[in-house]
């Protein structure tokens, strides 16, 4: 495989803070590469360097073998595009938003209209052309932003946490679109994420990034199977726990993750393992639920993060569990910091990593 982007010894600081530290990494043509790391690890900054929006203070970036300099950065930007984590749309119609990049490229009107129509179809927003972009729902806005990038058919597509602020249904739509364009259009994609589950499912390769450094690079299999302990401890990514597992008489596995927390999983594995529970698979309630789920814990809400239509809560059950609920549910339940709540999830929601 040929490298579309080659980075060597990149460093970048904001003021006195070193944000990227001797980054050496290649992005292969046609692959999906995930940059996996916690918030503040440097993923977004690295993506911006790849988007030629930021210039490293030292090191070298090559795009298709050509070194990126101040003089050719504008030309290089035509060949890549980035979708930001925070959805940003122009104050105009969906059509004009999606068409913006094509107008910058002086595409003829009839061709432009057809390309916009195709892009909207790809993101399942047919018929939305004349609607005001800023009046759409969060998920629809993110899809408009994605269509605006996809319509350009650039060689490199950079996605910064594309599903971070979306509910599971919209997140799933976005992930499906990303996989489709990689398979069908062979678009090279670099995606920054802190979502372990997403990082496992979509990309061909994963680069682990922490404190501005690339700590590991490998295929999904390498990272999640062989390097699982490093992955679990290196970044305190949400709902990732290392512990000792024992197979129970019922054919499930109990994983002791410390502090008296024992998680029951549907797989059978004995020994030291790492597990992950998707925040979206956990049900939060004010009273204990009577259900078939094997895992029921009680804990105290210690952190609340507003993410638009969703709310992320961290609940201390002895270990910190991250739960994601809709804002509507959050308001209806009248939740707040230090509230005691119950967390319920199935054994099948526990994934071995």
């Amino acid at each position, binding site marked *: 495989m040929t490298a579309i982007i080659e980075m060597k010894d990149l460093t970048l600081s904001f003021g006195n803070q070193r944000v990227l530290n001797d980054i050496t990494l290649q992005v292969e043509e046609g692959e999906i590469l995930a940059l996996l790391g916690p918030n503040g690890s440097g993923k977004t900054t690295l993506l*911006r360097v790849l*988007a030629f*929006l930021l210039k490293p203070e030292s090191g070298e970036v090559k795009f298709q073998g050509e070194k990126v300099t101040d003089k050719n950065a*504008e030309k290089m*930007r*035509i060949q*890549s*595009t*980035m979708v*930001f984590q*925070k959805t*940003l749309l*122009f*104050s105009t119609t969906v059509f004009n938003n999606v068409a*913006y*990049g094509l107008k*910058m*490229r002086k595409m003829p009107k009839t061709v432009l209209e057809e390309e916009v129509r195709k892009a909207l179809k790809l993101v399942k927003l047919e018929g939305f052309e004349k609607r005001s972009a800023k009046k759409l729902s969060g998920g629809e806005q993110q899809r408009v932003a994605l269509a*605006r*990038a996809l319509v*350009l058919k650039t060689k490199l597509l950079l996605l910064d946490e594309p599903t971070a602020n979306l509910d599971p249904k919209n997140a799933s739509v976005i992930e499906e679109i990303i996989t489709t364009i990689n398979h069908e259009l062979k678009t090279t994609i670099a995606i920054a994420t802190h979502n372990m589950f997403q990082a496992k499912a979509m990309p061909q390769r994963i680069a682990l990034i922490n404190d501005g450094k690339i700590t590991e690079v490998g295929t999904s299999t390498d990272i999640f199977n062989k390097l699982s302990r490093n992955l679990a401890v290196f970044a305190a990514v949400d709902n990732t726990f290392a512990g000792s597992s024992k197979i129970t008489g019922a054919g499930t596995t109990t994983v002791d993750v410390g502090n008296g927390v024992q998680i029951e999983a549907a797989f059978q594995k004995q020994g030291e393992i790492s597990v992950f529970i998707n925040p979206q698979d956990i049900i939060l309630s004010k009273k204990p639920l009577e259900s078939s789920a094997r895992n029921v814990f009680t804990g105290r809400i210690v952190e609340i993060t507003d993410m638009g239509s969703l709310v992320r809560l961290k609940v201390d059950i002895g270990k910190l569990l991250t739960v994601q609920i809709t804002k509507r549910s959050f308001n209806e339940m009248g939740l707040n910091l230090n509230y005691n709540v119950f967390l319920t999830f199935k054994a099948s929601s526990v994934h071995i990593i």
Partner: protein
Amino acid sequence: MDEIISGIIRAFQLIFSGDPSFYGIVYRSLLFSGVATILAVLWATPIAMVLGLKNFRGKSIIKGFFTSMIGIPTVALGLFLWLLLSKAGPLGFLGLLYTPGAIILGEALLVTPLIVSIAVNAVESVDPEMMNLAKTLGASESQASIAVLKEAVNGMILSNAAGFNRAIAELGVALMAGGNLAGFTDVLTTDISNLTSRGDFSTAIALAIILLAIVFGINLIIVVARNPRILFILGRMPQ
């Protein structure tokens, strides 16, 4: 109260009088202030874009300067221009004193700080990522700046309207630099001042009402042009 009523009646009389000298005064007011505002917008907009988008040493001092100059007394500016443009002044060779050009130049300078200050706020209120977004979609630096300008358009229109309002309502520059020459550099504000000094209050009040009506009318047109739904909503209001 009687004087105000007679002023209103006089205003309607003037509007329908067919008097060319009256129409000339209104025309000159609109022309001088309109051209002055356009001139100010032409140089204020790039200044506002730089101040709104870029970070550099001394930026806050420059912003502070423009903000503080918003309230410059018009008569002080008028006097300053008179000194510059008079025959003995450094720009006397231009022959601008007591001409429409002097009023236009003076009013353009007068409203520049106001337009810059409001426009800077408008540009700064646009998400700072907008420039990067436009660039990552293939825009050049100037194209990206235009994208930001479009996002700030409501604020820019407000700044332009505020500039025009200040220009057409000022007296000091028109009087000192324009000279209030009848049929040449007299405008609504200088005439109001003249008539009041002569004791012709009803005509002065009439011209003041007309000036207010012009300012109100132009701003209403701008509001409706930006949001035509207002007419629909007003049409559906209960009787």
